[in-house]
């Protein structure tokens, strides 16, 4: 019996990824082939061995005659031209070929008007790409579909050893499996300079991610420069002059993202995870007590004061004006009740409200108020899973699953059974790195957000997922290397068809994708001994 129980204990404990210490055996070097494989793998793709040459300056991106036109597509033409033809930062004309047909045009057709638009959860990202000499075509409903198609097109191009640029005759009909494909960056545990936020947005575009979940503030620091509460960053940033995101910075990030078809969803996590708010927003946090006297410590938003909700209303109104996305992430995770319990005013409030000693009711009360504020100012919201486990909110809520309770699948089943739309990030905590990144991406790859017990309706409520890079141990020095190409595994899981599960095939694609990212200037880390055609620096 004891043995059995022990086994159960071990089993449950060790479900989460542990640091594993292998002794390295002989690792074969892998000479990564650059043959124009696409990651994430398109939904349907027919390729032939017939190859066409790409030449400069004859090759051009053009709009079709009845196509909509806009800056998003114009700039993408420029970017992808560079990505295809720039090597080591220089635009190099490929070696011409006499005996080969040439692909001299990719004609793009955008059906929907795209001037000034922002991507949304409902955006269409479908595209159809036909590569055939002399003119290929890319057809999409929206500019976002064009962006995805151009990325695919750029990945199909490969260089031969003698410097020729080739692309095979190909037809692709592609669309994402999930609408919400995100990366979470945490800019509170460490400040992430804009340079790396943008590098990461580039990498996201290369991997067809479409949501930048910006966990912008937390206990450790408040780098968001608020207009209505400037003291939040003045007193809550690591350094109020250098370690902050100004309104201009934020606009810059949002525009940079928009041009890549990436939504920016900011997270203002309350009532917990708010230590850094205290100094700049007096009265917001709950005073903690020792017996009958305040002990000088503060913790979590004070849920019993009207002023707390006034402050949140002002802040969220500002957030609505600054961030165009229809969704805001309101956090709601990991609230510790000790400070609330110590506070006599809260005790009184609990009595008045008839909460007894159930502080989770107080938490629900707080969260409900915040969600109502958000609704009243016109923003949809995403919350961490606890909020939905603790009490029913309205069905427009999106719940983000971040821990096994008791398993990932059980949480997905539970939340979708209640009718909530759900995002998965448990299992994709890429901040947990282990010795061998050559194997840990396979764990991320094998996790399918729709594999759990439930009806088709429940499965359909899973709208996507996010790879999280919590910031305790990453900053500008190591962020990109630690996140990529491991997040590429998540990218493919969220974009490609459910039956794309062959690890052997995926390994070849992720290898090429890693070297592609390195060639494009990102310090994506290696997955095994070997080398890329173009190495970092």
């Amino acid at each position, binding site marked *: *019996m004891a043995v*059995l129980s*022990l086994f159960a*204990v071990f089993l449950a*404990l060790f*479900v*989460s990824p*542990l*640091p594993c*210490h292998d*002794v*390295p055996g*002989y*690792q*074969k*070097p892998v*000479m990564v082939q650059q043959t124009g494989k696409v990651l994430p793998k398109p939904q349907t793709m027919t390729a032939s061995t017939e190859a066409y040459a790409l030449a400069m300056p004859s090759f051009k991106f053009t709009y079709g005659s009845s196509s909509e036109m806009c800056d998003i597509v114009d700039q993408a033409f420029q970017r992808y031209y560079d990505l295809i033809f720039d090597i080591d930062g220089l635009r190099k004309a490929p070696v011409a070929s006499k005996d080969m047909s040439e692909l001299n045009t990719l004609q793009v057709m955008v059906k929907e008007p795209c001037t000034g638009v922002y991507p949304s959860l409902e955006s269409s990202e479908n595209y159809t790409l036909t590569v055939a000499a002399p003119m290929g075509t890319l057809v999409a409903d929206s500019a976002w579909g064009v962006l995805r198609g151009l990325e695919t097109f750029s990945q199909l191009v490969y260089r031969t050893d003698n410097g020729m640029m080739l692309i095979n005759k190909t037809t692709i009909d592609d669309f994402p499996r999930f609408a919400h494909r995100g990366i979470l960056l945490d800019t509170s*545990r*460490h*400040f992430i*300079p804009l*340079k*790396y936020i943008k590098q990461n947005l580039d990498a996201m575009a290369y991997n067809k991610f479409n949501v930048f979940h910006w966990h912008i503030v937390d206990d*450790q*620091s408040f780098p968001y420069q608020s207009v209505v509460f400037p003291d939040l960053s003045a007193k809550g940033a690591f*350094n109020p002059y*250098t*370690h902050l995101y100004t309104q201009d910075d934020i606009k810059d990030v949002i525009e940079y993202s928009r041009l890549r078809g990436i939504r920016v969803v900011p997270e203002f996590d309350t009532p917990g995870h708010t*230590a*850094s708010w205290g100094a700049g927003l007096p009265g917001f946090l709950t005073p903690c007590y020792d017996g009958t006297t305040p002990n000088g*410590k503060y913790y979590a938003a004070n849920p019993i004061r009207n002023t707390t909700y006034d402050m949140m209303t002002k802040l969220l109104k500002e957030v609505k004006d600054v961030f165009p996305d229809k969704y805001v992430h309101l956090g709601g995770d990991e609230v510790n009740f000790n400070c609330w319990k110590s506070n006599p005013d809260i005790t009184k409030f609990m009595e008045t409200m008839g909460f007894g000693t159930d502080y989770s009711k107080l938490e629900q009360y707080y969260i409900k108020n915040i969600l109502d504020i958000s609704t009243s100012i016109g923003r949809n919201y995403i919350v961490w899973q606890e909020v939905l486990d603790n009490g029913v909110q309205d069905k427009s809520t999106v719940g983000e699953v*971040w*821990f*096994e*309770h*008791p398993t990932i699948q059980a949480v997905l089943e539970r939340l979708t059974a209640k009718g909530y739309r759900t995002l998965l990030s448990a299992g994709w*905590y890429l*901040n*947990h*790195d*282990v*010795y061998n990144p050559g194997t840990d991406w396979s764990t991320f790859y094998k996790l399918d957000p729709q594999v759990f017990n439930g009806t088709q309706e429940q499965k359909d409520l899973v709208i996507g997922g996010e790879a999280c890079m919590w910031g*305790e*141990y*990453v*900053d*500008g*020095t*190591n962020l990109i*290397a630690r996140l990529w190409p491991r997040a590429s595994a998540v990218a493919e899981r969220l974009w490609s068809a459910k039956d794309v599960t062959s690890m052997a095939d995926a390994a070849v694609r992720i290898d090429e994708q890693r070297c592609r990212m*390195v060639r494009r200037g990102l*310090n994506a*880390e*290696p997955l*095994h*001994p070997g*080398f890329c055609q173009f*190495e*970092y*620096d």
Partner: protein
Amino acid sequence: MKLSVFCLLVALVCQRAFADWVRQPFWYDDARRDKVAKGTVWPQPRSIQTTQQSLSLNPDSFSFSTSDDASSNANCKDVLDPAIERYRDLLFWIPAGERVSVSGDRVLGGLRVTISGGTCSEYPTLDSDESYTLEVPASGDATLRAQTAWGALRGLETFSQLVYEVDGKHKLNVTTISDEPRFRHRGVMLDTARHFLNVPYIKQNLDAIAYNKMNVFHWHIVDDQSFPFQSATYPDLSGKGAYTQDNVYTRQDVLDVIEYARMRGIRVIPEFDSPGHMQSWGQGYPELLTSCSPTNVQADIYHLGPANVARNSTYDFMQNLFTEIRDIFADDYLHLGGDEVHFQCWMSNAEIQDFMRQQGFPNTTQGFAQLEGYYIKRLLDIVEGLSVAPKRSRGIVWQEIFDNNILSGDFTVDLDTIIHVWQWNNSNFQGIPYWDELPLVTGAGYQAILSSCWYLNFISYGRDWPEYYACDPHNFTGTPQQKQLVIGGEAPLWAEWVDATNHVARMWPRASAVAERLWSPQSVTDSAAASPRMEEQRCRMVRRGIRAQPQGPSYCKYEWNLAGQAGNYVPTASGARGITGYAQQLLLSLFSCLVLTFGLS
């Protein structure tokens, strides 16, 4: 059955607690507090008396001067003058526009460097004296005294670390330091075979090595996967064994690295590992390796095994190659490897079998170990035979030859040979724990260097440097003479999963923990007390252009690329919290689970 369900629940609660921990650092209220140390020295000097009395430095007028001793000896001057230029730059980092005038402050005018040993060696050696004394007095110039240029380098590094920034001024406190290293051999090992690392990254590591007062760059330059060292004698080694012809170190590259290291008081010890780990050699010179028969015995790409130790031509090859190596590398010591030889291929080869019969080696594992030992001993003889006075030529070998041959009494080797202890013992590797190995090695009279507990390629989530910090090379039972024979250690970063994209960040500041263990007195063991200094050291490296990764929530005033350009500086907050680890947390939960489980059964 009920109990099982209960256990499962308990486990789930633990799991939950664990998951919470993962997202919630407990020390949020500390992350922003600017508790990083200012003007502290890493590694901790042997003796330091510091005061609260601060002096300002004037970047425009601060002067370095050298004594006659230091300036008249060509070798001393050769190292010292460029060092002074380097430290002049490192000393003043506040951007010109943000500097505040120090007029009216008590100002330290300059630093005078004296080398009293009279002579300096051209290259640092195992026996170089690195001691120094540094005096920053309340008035008058500061003085740095050393016996050698190498000691002066360490003292300059210390002096530069005493300087801190306050309100736009460079300051330091009145301080007296007397310092010398605890161990003579303090190294990091880079592996340039699993991934090629270009010369600028090697130099970045050499800078960091100097900032941490380490003095050995162990260059694991070739291995199974590739052979980037370009040999004039055997050009096909890199011609066919390098990944590409861009991924090679030319003779000039190597000399450049050696000179760069010399300027920083760092010995460069190359490792040409044989008779195993030689797959890449066989690309150009297949006859050098043993043909495995049948060919599927060795699961490699070339169907070739370890060196063919039965042929005289193999020893001729090594004689020629090492003659070239000996000519290029200045250090007395060459690392000859000798680790992890798999015997299956030798067993399958008739030529080897014949040779073993001739030599009288039995056809057993022990016999093959004897064969390996025979080879290594001959190689050691070759290398030692290359000594040309005053340069000596000596070998370092991984511990296998000691374990397999010396310990079993097959033979002895020159006592100058250094045994490199690398094995460990845990659930993944059943080797000999270093505290069992070191008494044997030193008991037999050999010198040892330790790496077992400092494999930086093994990573885990979070702040792991305290583990490296806690490992002491003298943690074994032995006489004082035996302890003396442990001459230091090395932190290896095997490169299966690192290249230029992530190498420097993964190495530093984790190797800094090893640097302090090897330099500072044995009594300096409290990693919590060391944290603020470690934070300063990490931010200092970032400021100086070393991409050292963070060790927990914190910030540096000059973050990496804070404003889009490289090379910033800033004091950090934080003490990286004492998450003593994932592992500890896990054990804690496991323990409570067990207590609950058994408590109820």
